[in-house]
């Protein structure tokens, strides 16, 4: 009798330990900022892409990660999303550095480029209360292109503020809403912005 009691207690302990380990490790994995975009496709070394946001075709882990780290995204029928977590040299984006983001016209109804703190996945507080530029408000070059300067200090050109301290990793999210048929047919290999580090 005592033997069975010991076996039952042992089994309960194994189940409890495995349950808590499974729950904690899975939650950590789903919320880990370093692995949020693991299932995204690498387009060009800088930009990552997924057409599974909001999609019924998403795997369960893709759905869970999206829900936790950026809920209520639109399906690719309406919008597509690109993420840059590193610059054109493959170095992680850091908030103390200055970057020149240069892009061509994008054949779409609306686009926006937004900066998020990679750890909190929220806006970076700044004096301008600006965390993005969009296709209407961005100053254009003669050819319709555009340049944004990401930096912790004020800039003369279109400034997207990062932060001086602490030196945090950040990412840039390019949202392309209601893309034209031409753009849609070339996804994800559209002409994407370059992200060049100017100084650090």
């Amino acid at each position, binding site marked *: 009798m005592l033997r069975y009691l010991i*076996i039952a207690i*042992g*089994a309960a302990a*194994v*189940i409890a*330990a*495995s*349950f808590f*380990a*499974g*729950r904690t*490790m*899975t*939650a950590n994995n*789903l919320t880990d900022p370093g692995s949020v975009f693991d299932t995204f496709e690498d387009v060009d070394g800088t930009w990552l892409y997924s057409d599974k946001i*909001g*999609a*019924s075709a*998403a795997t*369960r*882990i893709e*759905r*869970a990660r*999206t*829900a*936790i*780290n*950026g*809920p*209520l*995204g*639109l*399906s690719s*029928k*309406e919008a597509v999303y690109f993420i840059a977590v590193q610059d054109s040299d493959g170095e992680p984006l850091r908030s103390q550095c200055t970057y020149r983001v240069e892009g061509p016209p994008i054949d779409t*109804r*609306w686009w*926006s480029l*937004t900066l*998020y703190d990679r750890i909190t*996945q*929220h*806006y970076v507080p700044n004096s301008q*209360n*600006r*965390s*993005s530029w*969009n296709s*209407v*408000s961005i100053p254009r070059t003669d050819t319709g292109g555009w340049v944004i300067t990401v930096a912790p200090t004020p800039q003369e050109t279109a400034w997207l503020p990062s932060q001086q301290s602490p030196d945090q990793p950040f990412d840039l*999210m390019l*949202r392309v*809403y*209601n893309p034209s048929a031409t753009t849609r047919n070339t996804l994800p290999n559209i002409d994407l912005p370059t992200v060049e580090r100017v100084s650090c």
Partner: protein
Amino acid sequence: MLKQVLFYAVGALVLSAATFFITRNVVIQQAPIKVMSTIENRIVAGAGDWNTCFHNQTYGPRKNAARRANPDSIISSMAYDLSNGPVRIAGETWPRYWSISFYQQNSDNYFVTNDLELERSSFEFVLALDGQDISAFEGVPIISPTPKGIMLVRRFAANASDMDGIIANQQALTCAPVDPVGT
């Protein structure tokens, strides 16, 4: 003796692996549902009830926004519960760029359309569950896969000067349970 110890060790390992695997799958499966419930409760707290519109009227970044919210997308939201019948959503589109989207309880965006896809600038949808009788109601039917979910109307603002127009557009949006004809 050694054989018996080995037997229990293997048993514990199998039990542990099975528990871990099942727990992991349940967490992954339930995570989007839990996130949706949290957002629904926040919308209901802001709107005052289920099946009621709630409007963001701030341009730019907001401290209490969801993770990775888009600051130039000014959102009206509704947490819906179709248990007691269909819900009607009606209003006007927004000229810059406008979309309406619906999310089921597992967070999938099962329906979305935009202003260019609609025939007119005014719209009327009836949101219902499969099997609910909506023949007496006007409006384009949308069938929700789950009784609860979230609706979002996105209006895109170039800058803060768009907000007066957007707020007027928000006031023209209605979200409410449908009234059966004759009642």
